[in-house]
């Protein structure tokens, strides 16, 4: 009983420390951004790493997600005599949920882990200290570019993901039910609200912030031992996914009541 309480207490303290460190890091990042402390070249490099390099895996994920979803929906819709709405159903689901959420999870696994690993390695090899000795704030130099890159590219990826998911859905709907492109895509414009798409993009902005802040926090607070870099990388992905799901719930309720 005592050891269980001790473990609970330990987890609670670690959770509080995590939220404190993450909030402080986010605040410091925002201060630098508001002061114009942005270096263009590192930001563009990070945008390429976070956004462009994540595109292939996002595309594959969304293509198959759209196909699977359409496979289920098309079958049920045909039973109910609502086949003409399959395209809209896929598009609505992609825009509301699957596009932003799956994109964020894929980017968290790929880029969030890379942020944690890179900054964690810099921490254990004293490169972070070296930055400070050369009058360079590690948050301004390392975190701000990653923060801006995630904030800007994850929403773009989410939009692309929506489109690819819808396209994948058409492929499956056409293959399983013989649906034409006019039938499939024709239901989307009149039924899919612009706000639904916008809400998905707004969600993706928040998800991008989570990925960057959590990934960088885990890296910067890595303990100085080689194995800790691996642990920090794993934690970054796990925490990102958990927070993305939690944020998704809150944002869905707020944005899409």
């Amino acid at each position, binding site marked *: 009983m005592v050891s269980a309480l001790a473990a609970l207490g330990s987890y609670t303290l670690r959770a509080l420390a995590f939220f404190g460190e993450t909030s402080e890091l986010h605040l410091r990042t925002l201060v630098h951004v508001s002061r114009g402390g942005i270096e263009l070249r590192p930001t563009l490099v990070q945008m390429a790493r976070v956004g462009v390099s994540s595109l292939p895996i996002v595309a594959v994920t969304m293509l198959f997600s759209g196909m699977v979803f359409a496979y289920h929906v098309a079958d049920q819709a045909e039973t109910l005599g609502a086949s003409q709405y399959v395209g809209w159903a896929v598009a609505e689901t992609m825009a509301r949920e699957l596009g932003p959420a799956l994109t964020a999870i894929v980017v968290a696994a790929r880029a969030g882990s890379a942020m944690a690993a890179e900054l964690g390695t810099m921490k254990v090899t004293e490169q972070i200290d070296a930055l400070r000795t050369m*009058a360079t*704030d590690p948050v301004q130099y390392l975190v701000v570019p990653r923060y801006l890159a995630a904030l800007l590219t994850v929403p773009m990826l989410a939009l692309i993901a929506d489109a690819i998911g819808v396209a994948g859905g058409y492929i499956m709907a056409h293959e399983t039910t013989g649906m034409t492109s006019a039938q499939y895509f024709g239901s989307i414009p009149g039924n899919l609200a612009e706000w639904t798409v916008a809400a998905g993009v707004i969600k993706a902005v928040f998800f991008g912030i989570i990925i960057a802040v959590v990934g960088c926090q885990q890296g910067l607070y890595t303990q100085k031992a080689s194995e800790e870099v691996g642990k920090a990388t794993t934690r970054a992905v796990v925490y990102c996914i958990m927070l993305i799901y939690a944020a998704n719930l809150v944002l869905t309720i707020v944005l899409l009541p």
Partner: protein
Amino acid sequence: MSGTELSVADVERVPQPPERQPLLSVRQASHTIDGQQILEGISFDVYPGEIFGIMGMSGSGKTTLLRLLIGLERPTVGRVFFRGEDMTVLDEDGLNRVRKSMGMCFQYSALFDSMTVAQNIAFAVRNRRDLPRADVERRVHELLDVVEMEGTENRMPADLSGGMKKRVGIARALMEEPALVLYDEPSSGLDPVMACNITGLIKRVSEDRGSTAVVVSHDVLHLLAIANRVLMLHEGREVLQGTPDDMRASEIPIVHRFVHGVGTGPGTEFCPAR
């Protein structure tokens, strides 16, 4: 932070010629990490142009002390003054201003592994709009000449040996022509020849540029060869402070054993004394 107000003028100092003002002063610095006392009551001055050595056994607090000198950590108690300014009360912006007059060479070099040698050396001035690119490149070449690493501008740190990394680290620390350069174990992990070369480089750099150096090392031979004055630490406390000759002649057991390489415990009778 200290519970008492301390200033350079108020506290007890090691006696010095009145015309010499210290570049760096440490007063009663103590430091605790996770409840463990790492340093206790350390006081010393470093004067312009001298090479000040800090030596001691592994775990004596040498590197921690060095980190206090450049503000990477703040002493739990005590003060650190640079050019008369109390660094312990400065925020990070203030410390960054002070650090522009300092350079640091890390034990494992801490080169930025995603940048070339030239980019590493020029990092501190990368955003200086008052420095034309051609001037920066010229200075990088000059520094590579000083550290005898000509032609390595485009190499990556992963392609360099330990000694080469140390040299690039020294060049990087010198880029902004600092008044004070801190060296953390500059000869560690190097063969005897390379260790001697690095030690000679530190001496040459200090003399040629008139810069001040604080060298942390447990390599007694090389440290005593180049330092003007030395502080020895043991378990976070000062044991002795003086010239290299004071260290060699000291009858304090821990100093004597350390300087002359006399081991303790079984099996150490095989260790050749210096």
